[in-house]
């Protein structure tokens, strides 16, 4: 990715940052799920629902053909039909309800994309409990927002109805495009239920950086060498070290040496970078404790 694309992505993430104040008075950072992630999650869920339904129908058809040939429609056939009707009903309304009321607050599709439903923070940032009513409200609205437009699109009613069809298309488009016109990416159901969809990624705790089993060659960095970089560069260096790609490490090492005016050596690249990282972080964190922060190399 180019630097420009990266910067744009970073700005996009920043725009989606929100803060939630927990009852303990702690600010909890939240990231609003992007529209792309939400659309992806919805498509996954719909694919699951339709796939399941299709399998069921194929299974029933296979069983049904055999049954029809042997016997006339009796109570067994009726039971199957009733179960099918109720099952479709449950899939349409119950699927999202069941999963979003669970402890994860996410349907399988949402889980796959690392997002979940949460109660929206009120105007002063206080976060509430996600209630059953809220989940019901947001999923009843889904009918108008998702299922009816989907049926409309698939059946092509809009094309065959002329002016009325166009009016209906515009009307449905208002619902479908609603998330694109507000900063929290709320759909109509979220607005009515007082919820939003946030990122809920699970992160593993990476290893501590300054723990080393055997001390390697010791480097000494002075004031002049350490003052050229800020927090941003430190965290980029952290990423490079954690990824542990020799080629990238060599490139970074050369870049650092150019910057601080050293001659890049040919022994252990990683040892040098780790030493530089520890020294830079010690310096920046020391300054932090005195309330001095250096955002990046330009500041």
């Amino acid at each position, binding site marked *: 990715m180019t630097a420009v694309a990266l910067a744009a992505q970073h700005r996009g993430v920043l725009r989606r940052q929100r803060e939630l104040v*927990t009852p*303990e008075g*702690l600010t*909890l*950072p*939240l990231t609003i799920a992007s529209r792309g992630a939400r659309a992806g999650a919805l498509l996954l869920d719909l694919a699951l629902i339709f796939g399941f339904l299709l399998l069921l129908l194929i299974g029933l058809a296979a069983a049904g053909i055999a049954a029809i040939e042997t016997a006339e429609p009796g109570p067994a056939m*009726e039971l199957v*039909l*009733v179960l099918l*009707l*109720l099952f*479709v*009903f449950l899939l349409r*309304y119950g699927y999202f309800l069941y999963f979003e*009321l669970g*402890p994860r*607050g996410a349907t399988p599709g949402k889980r796959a994309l690392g997002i*979940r439903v*949460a109660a*929206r923070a*009120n105007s002063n940032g206080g*976060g*509430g*409990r*996600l*209630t*059953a*009513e*809220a989940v*019901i*409200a947001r999923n*009843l609205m889904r*009918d*108008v927002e998702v299922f*009816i437009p989907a049926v409309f699109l698939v059946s092509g009613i809009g094309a065959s109805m002329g002016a009325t069809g166009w009016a209906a298309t515009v009307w449905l488009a208002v619902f479908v495009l609603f998330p694109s016109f507000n900063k929290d990416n709320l759909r109509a159901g979220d*607005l*009515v*239920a*007082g919820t939003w969809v946030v990122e*809920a990624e*699970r*992160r*593993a*705790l*990476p290893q*501590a*950086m*300054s*723990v*080393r089993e055997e001390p390697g060659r010791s480097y000494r960095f002075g004031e002049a060498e350490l003052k050229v970089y800020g927090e941003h560069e*430190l*965290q980029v260096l*952290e990423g490079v070290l954690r990824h542990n790609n020799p080629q990238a490490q060599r490139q970074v090492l050369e870049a650092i040496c150019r910057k601080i005016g050293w001659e890049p050596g040919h022994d252990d690249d990683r040892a040098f970078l780790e030493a530089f990282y*520890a020294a830079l*972080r*010690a310096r*920046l*964190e020391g300054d*932090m*404790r005195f309330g001095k922060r250096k955002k990046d190399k330009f500041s």
Partner: protein
Amino acid sequence: MALALFRKAQVVPVPAIEAASLRSDRFRLERETDWRRLEAIVTALEKNRLRRISDEDLLALPVLYRQAASSLAVARETSLDAGTLAYLESLVRRAWFQVYGPRTSLTGWLRRFLGGQWSAAVRAIWLELCIALAAMIAGTAVGWLLVARDSDWYYALVPGEFADSRRPGATRAVLAEALTGTEGKGEGLTVFAAYLFSNNTGVAVMAFALGFAFGVPTLLLLVFNMAVLGAMMWLFVDAGLGWEFAAWLSVHGTTELAAILLAGAAGLHIGRAMAFPGARPVLAAAAQGGRLAALVMAGVVLMLAVAGLLEGYARQLVEDPIARGAIGVTMGLAWLTYFLLAGRRRVVRQNGAAT
């Protein structure tokens, strides 16, 4: 696979605290064991495996959560380790969702819902109920008057599936035949009931969801649907079958029409909350209105299930107009009593707490 599982279950050894040369890393190593314990509890909660969590762990959860939260607050000001910060943020967020997650089980929620929450919500939207009722009466009147003036309107209003034999000019005998509706005698009734239920629920949910556009489409939907009823009413009254038609309709009609009334009123409530939020911000007003309306709607689905059963079974099996009327009136009165009386005390207590 088995190997991976085994590895996962292993406790990750925490390096000696003295091994870390950075102060912020020592801070992290000191607390890492607690974080990992919290993570294990939260993961079990997320997977709904409550039995896997020991009592000690469950008691420790709030303490561990607060510890992790304060660790995060400190780490934000003292540490530049992006990996640890990201982990802590995700851990505290996950723990927050579990500690402040929904508190009731589904059965507990149902008991509270039927024991007064629903009826209280219905009473709370009395104004919208009046408006929706007015719209429904107006719709019926419009349908009646239109068809009374020019019977061609009947074909425009009533969808084709209903206008089979029940059309203007049909003889009294044909219309009376349509009302008996006992063809098949019990066969396929369950299918019919299930179909009616899922179809009607679709209409009710639509009436609710369209309330989002300030309630206007909901009103239109109510008026149009009732105009169909008005037109059919005229047809039967014109043939001198008014009483029989009313009895035929009332078996499930009192329940179904009440459900449609509630759904329409719930939609209107959202529309009204958004159009006239009062002193609250629009978003807050919409959310508050939406949650109240959702309560009403959960009940509407229940009522429509009852109506589907009545329409599918009772109406097809009971032929006597008096018995039909009695069922309908009893159901209507039962709903009315329930909505007026259930959970009265509860509301008084809630209002007392709110003021």
